[in-house]
């Protein structure tokens, strides 16, 4: 009955109540969003790489190397030769190495040139290995293994043919059209940048760039500004071009012609369609040229204790300018960098919530004057002063709970629509579930703040009822 009275009373003052709910909804949504993104961003960041003890790359900033090699964001000005990998492997503490080469894209998704070691050794989250849920890993150079999101978004299935584009960015005018790659595997979703990546063998990447060089030589020169990484590739390409077997220059043309008839009527957006999952004997996984440029090497050690000395050794190497970073430590540094802003945001969000709660209290307090009569009536028919107190608290809580529910719905809705955008542009993987321990604590906190703020009008109502000075 009391709840009914509260509801009717709020309905009676609906314009001021709606405004208050609106103000509260905005502030609570803000707080929930900040808190959710804060937690998810941290989780999302720290789960991207696990089990990698060292990341070795050309000499550059630690943060830069991490962002580029793990998140595929930004760029590093130079590359290193593939033979660095064998140099590293000679160290007795090194258990495995994964070479990665970045710089190309496929329809906005980054392309990662690597070897099968990637699928074997790369881990994410809590030492979870990658899982190929469809197909297999590389067995020929013209093959690709897709991340879960890439396959889902672009509607690719096994045997589809894909074409790489040069440089980063979703729209690229320069495409390696002569070298279609066959999708031979699709990875399970990981909630990390791996999902957004097309993995191809280093040999395939080299071949794609080789044919591109070939087309350039035959007079086709696209008039576009190359990105920094593209320029890097273009300049470092000259040396190894001579090493490449001659037949790789010709065969891709044949391939494109052979499968052209399959092109029309296909359900997905693939440009080509292959017929067999069997490795193409024309594109064997040759030994990788020692001078093939790569972006970074992920290193796993037999003995993690050796990591610091190895890092120092690599960083101080005078022959080759290299950087080695401990991903965990750099991740932490990165996090510390943003944690100040994150705390500031959270603080501001809380202040806004408190301000809105004070607004709520003000609204209730302002209504007390016109409610003096109502309180007298309630007292006359036998309501206790504490009932009046309760009534005002119920009204305040009703407003806040409504605002909280609207906030949860709207934040979930916004996240639902922004989820994929955040993942593809910021590499931020958010879950839709707002109910974590910390958000629950925050929601309880909001309720507590409301109760405290609405104490002022409630106590006023109580006194009003008690003295009955009308």
């Amino acid at each position, binding site marked *: 009955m009391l709840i009914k009275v509260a509801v009717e009373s709020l309905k009676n003052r609906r314009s001021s109540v709606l405004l208050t709910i609106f103000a509260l909804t905005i502030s609570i949504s803000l707080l929930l969003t900040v808190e959710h993104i804060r937690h998810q961003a941290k989780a999302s960041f720290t789960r991207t790489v696990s089990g990698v003890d060292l990341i070795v790359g050309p000499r550059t900033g630690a943060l830069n190397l991490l962002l580029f090699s793990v998140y595929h964001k930004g760029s590093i000005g130079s590359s290193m030769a593939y033979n660095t990998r064998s140099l590293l492997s000679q160290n007795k503490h090194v258990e495995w190495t994964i070479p990665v080469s970045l710089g190309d894209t496929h329809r906005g998704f980054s392309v990662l040139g690597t070897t099968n070691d990637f699928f074997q050794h790369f881990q994410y989250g809590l030492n979870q290995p990658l899982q190929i849920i469809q197909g297999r890993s590389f067995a020929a150079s013209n093959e690709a293994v897709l991340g879960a999101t890439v396959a889902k978004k672009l509607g690719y299935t096994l045997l589809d043919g894909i074409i790489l584009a040069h440089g980063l960015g979703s729209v690229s005018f320069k495409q390696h059209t002569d070298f279609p790659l066959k999708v031979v595997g699709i990875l399970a979703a990981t909630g990390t940048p791996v999902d957004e990546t097309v993995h191809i063998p280093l040999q395939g990447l080299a071949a794609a760039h080789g044919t591109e060089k070939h087309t350039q030589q035959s007079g086709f020169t696209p008039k576009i500004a190359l990105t920094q990484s593209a320029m890097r590739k273009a300049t470092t390409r000259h040396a190894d071009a001579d090493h490449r077997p001659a037949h790789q220059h010709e065969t891709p043309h044949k391939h494109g012609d052979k499968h052209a008839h399959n092109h029309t009527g296909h359900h997905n957006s693939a440009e080509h369609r292959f017929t067999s999952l069997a490795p193409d004997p024309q594109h064997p996984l040759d030994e990788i040229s020692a001078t093939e440029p790569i972006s970074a090497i992920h290193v796993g050690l037999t003995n993690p204790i050796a990591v610091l000395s190895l890092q120092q050794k690599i960083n101080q190497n005078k022959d080759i300018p290299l950087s080695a970073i401990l991903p965990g430590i750099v991740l932490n540094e990165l996090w510390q960098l943003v944690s100040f802003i994150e705390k500031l945001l959270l603080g501001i969000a809380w202040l806004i919530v408190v301000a809105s709660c004070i607004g709520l209290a003000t609204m209730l307090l302002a209504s007390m004057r016109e409610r*003096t009569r*109502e309180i007298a009536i309630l007292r006359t028919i036998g309501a206790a002063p504490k009932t009046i107190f309760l009534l005002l608290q119920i009204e305040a809580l009703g407003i806040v709970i409504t605002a909280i529910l609207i906030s949860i719905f709207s934040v979930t809705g916004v996240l639902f629509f922004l989820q994929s955008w955040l993942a593809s542009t910021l590499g931020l993987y958010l879950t839709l579930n707002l109910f974590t321990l910390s958000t629950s604590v925050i929601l309880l906190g909001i309720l507590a703040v409301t109760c405290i703020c609405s104490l002022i009008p409630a106590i006023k109502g109580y006194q009003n009822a008690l003295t*009955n000075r009308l």
Partner: protein
Amino acid sequence: MDKLAAINIQNCHFAYAPDKPILQIPSFVIAPGTTVFLRGPSGSGKSTLLQLCTGMLLPQSGQIHVLGESISTLSASARDRFRAANIGVVLQQFNLIDYLSVYDNIKLAQHFTHQDPPTQHTAYLDELLQALRLSPEIQQQKANALSVGQQQRVAILRALINRPKLLIVDEPTSALDEAAKTSFMETLFTLQRMTCCTLLFVSHDMRLTKGFDRVVDLADIDDISTAAVSTADTGLNEWPNTSIKGVQ
């Protein structure tokens, strides 16, 4: 001392501030089942007296028994429950919570008795509606959609719904026109006979005394009122009707 009297006030003293005594009543007794007209000019303390009788105010000294219950010694919550269950009150104006429907206003009065609403109330409610010449459809209307006369009749209905043994009515006709006044008084007596409750009717309008068992002048029972009629401090001890000022 007649403990079974509807109202029994002995040596009662009340003041809002120590230097401003409002009431000093040596003895005032109302026999059960009677109708009493209490007369007094505004500001003479009669509203304060009513609030003492309903237990909304406590005297500084003296005893007040209502329906045999020593209301001044009950706990605060027991007093509120006692009032809800045993005393019906109709005020000059603004008896209803205007954003609630008539039905909810009535339900609310039942709610505060802290009893499960008995089913026989529907029959009783129909009886009251009929006696008050209110159509059953009126229950669904919002209180602020009713005319003043309708509101006052609903107020009586609400006051009687818990079958109180004491009905206190304070200047109920001051907002009504002459014709409405007459019909209101007739209805009030009809209902009093129907429910056999004790009726304490307070007004300054001596034309309404017709039909009452007993007419009492506040000045006759209140020592202060006798002396203070001419210098009455108005405004302090009024019933909720003064809150009109607040609204304006």
